[in-house]
């Protein structure tokens, strides 16, 4: 029974990882940008939420309505001002730009908020749970996080496969030189992709802040989990990212069931095993280009 419980908790945790990884997966899929600032930006969103909650006294859930569009705007400007230029320089430039951004964001947060642990207060919701049997109960907040993670990935998938802009993003991913011949401005498509990615980062950061404590350097660990989810699932595949998040979450909670200090270790070992034996991930892109 304990094991079943561990798996259920792992699936719920996987929802958070998938939510964190969705934007990373999207930016890599469309622009081949490895956004090393992803974790730092998630923490930035959590602090943004904190400032709004402290200033207005509203619930963190309501604050999402402000954080998400602000993060989307940040994404648009970031792509337009930094990443598009870095992409035109080619090579490692986007990676280095993202790394620099991660350092700057983390340090600015340290400067403004210090290294003290913070959290977004959600009142009794943080301990509310649904009891299934004596030994299995599901936390309401983890359940909400999980549902939001699945909805975000589902929404992104539908957007990419059905919407004209999503189609343009896939075309730009295939062949950025040919897309302008269709009358599409790559730079604008990229800016919108990063805006969407950072909107999801905004959601992920807020849920991180609601579920536990955070400080400015907390983004590094989150970046690693998000990366592992993307790689386990298969680069450039959103369904894979969802599956990868769950595999990582289950590995961590089952590992912790064996011994509380093994959780993260087992997660990393599963990740290494996937890299060694199935480097394309669980659900690689159907069409190789």
């Amino acid at each position: 029974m304990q094991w079943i419980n561990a798996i259920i908790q792992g699936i719920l945790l996987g929802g958070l990882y998938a939510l964190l990884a969705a934007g990373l997966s999207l930016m890599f899929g469309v622009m081949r940008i490895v956004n090393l600032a992803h974790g730092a930006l998630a923490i930035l969103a959590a602090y943004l939420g904190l400032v709004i909650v402290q200033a207005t006294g509203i619930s963190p859930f309501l604050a999402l309505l402000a954080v998400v569009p602000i993060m989307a705007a940040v994404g648009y400007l970031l792509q337009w001002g930094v990443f598009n230029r870095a992409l035109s320089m080619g090579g490692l430039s986007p990676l280095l730009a993202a790394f620099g951004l991660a350092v700057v964001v983390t340090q600015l947060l340290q400067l403004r908020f210090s290294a003290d642990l913070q959290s977004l207060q959600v009142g009794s919701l943080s301990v509310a749970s649904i009891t299934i049997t004596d030994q299995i109960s599901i936390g309401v907040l983890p359940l909400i996080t999980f549902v939001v993670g699945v909805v975000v990935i589902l929404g992104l998938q539908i957007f990419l496969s059905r919407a004209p802009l999503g189609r343009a993003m896939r075309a730009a991913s295939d062949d950025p030189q040919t897309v302008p011949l269709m009358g599409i401005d790559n730079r604008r498509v990229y800016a919108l992709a990063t805006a969407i990615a950072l909107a999801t980062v905004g959601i992920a950061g807020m849920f991180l802040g609601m579920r536990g404590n955070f400080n400015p350097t907390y983004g590094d660990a989150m970046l690693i989990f998000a990366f592992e989810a993307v790689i386990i699932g298969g680069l450039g595949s959103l369904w894979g990212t969802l599956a990868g998040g769950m595999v990582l979450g289950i590995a961590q909670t089952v590992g912790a069931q064996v011994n509380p200090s093994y959780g993260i270790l087992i997660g990393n070992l599963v990740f290494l095993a996937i890299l060694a034996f199935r480097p394309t991930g669980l659900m690689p892109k159907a069409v190789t280009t």
Partner: protein
Amino acid sequence: MSLLSVRDLDVHYGDFQAIYGLTVTIDEGETLAIIGANGAGKSTLLKSIAGQVTPTAGSVTFADVDITRTPPHKRVPLGIALTPEGRRIFPSLTVEENLLVGAHVKRKGPWSLASVYEAFPLVADRKDRFGANLSGGEQQATAIGRALMSNPRLLLLDEVSLGLAPVVVEQIYAALPAITSTGTTVLVVEQDVNQSMKVASRVQCLLEGRTVLEGRPSDLHRDQIASAYFGI
């Protein structure tokens, strides 16, 4: 008044000059064939018109607007569409999605999914296939359909016949009257002289970045073309 006018164009790739003072004009409704051997500058000329390369000297004027330095994505709304060398079909999109991306710029005109499928039955049969899984001929037909979806005033076709079986080339050229009959101006670049002589109202032969022969197909003699083509 000509629809497209390329004047005294010079194009360089680094130290290498691909085009020397080239002048090309096309009237609305005309079909011009640019022929020439490998390295004559044909594809470079098309890229200059579509905006993929920036000339070092000279000008490109389309419908009285100077577009010499206009980026490619802003030329499509003006009515210029290119089917690029190598077709460049988006491999992870289906044929139909490729066509829909071509329709991103919503210019008004006769071309739609239905009319492209009618003109190219080959494309209609494959509409749900991924671009990566098409034969050369299917790719070429899809590429032309994709360019038509923007309802261009000027359609630029680069090396339609390259690498295709003769029977497939025939099928694709069979659709050309349907395109020109809607009033679309066509500039076709070809190595296959016979094919282009059949469809063009005027032929211009390039050699090493310069025009060496120009005229109506009926006025040109085979030997004239052969010597211009090979520079002998």
